[in-house]
């Protein structure tokens, strides 16, 4: 199945604006993002800490709905999902 990952702001500069990738059934959001930053140490270091957990400032969305990073490991992606990952917002 296919999912789209969108990076914004500083993460976009380190990775890509978006990546469309094929994943297996039962892939969690955490596993997905970990996988797509496999060959990008700068992006991975910006997003994950040394234990492989999300850094405190990371914000995740699944189809526009906020997903707590602490829940991302148990939240599975579905075909056609749009996963977004970004630092704290600074509009206004």
């Amino acid at each position: 199945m296919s999912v789209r990952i969108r990076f914004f702001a500083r993460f976009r500069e380190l990775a890509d604006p978006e990546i469309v990738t094929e994943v297996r059934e039962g892939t969690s959001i955490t596993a997905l993002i970990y996988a797509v930053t496999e060959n990008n140490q700068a992006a991975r270091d910006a997003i994950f800490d040394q234990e492989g957990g999300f850094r405190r400032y990371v914000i995740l969305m699944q189809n526009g709905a906020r997903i707590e990073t602490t829940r991302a490991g148990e939240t599975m992606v579905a075909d056609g999902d749009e996963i977004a990952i970004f630092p704290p917002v600074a509009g206004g």
Partner: protein
Amino acid sequence: MISIQREDVDISRLVQEAKHPGAGAILVFDGIVRNDDITEMELEAYEGVALRELEHIAMEASAQHGLLSVDIVHRIGRLRVGENILVIVVSAAHRKEAYDGSRFILEAIKEKVPIWKKELRTGGDRWVAGESKNH
């Protein structure tokens, strides 16, 4: 009008359109690019989600503060010093509702709407630190 756009905003037109029957107070917040030794500012949005959030904030502000109208225009792209970044126009029967409603919208935007700003400087670019609460 709730919009995320590259084009500038016509503030007079928004004020004129905010003159609803029953309105006694119109408040305009205009956030502009401040001259903090920057050359330009670059704004980026997660557009679909940001627009939906702005619409949600406008509805919440109207319900909580009795606003008669809400317009929010947030610009993206490259902006020079002094250019409009964010224009919020609210109208209400009385001044208190207008001030409170406008401020509510502004704080909610800063906290919740996926938009980011980068300051472009001769000495190197810098992402503006967010004010969002990361629960």
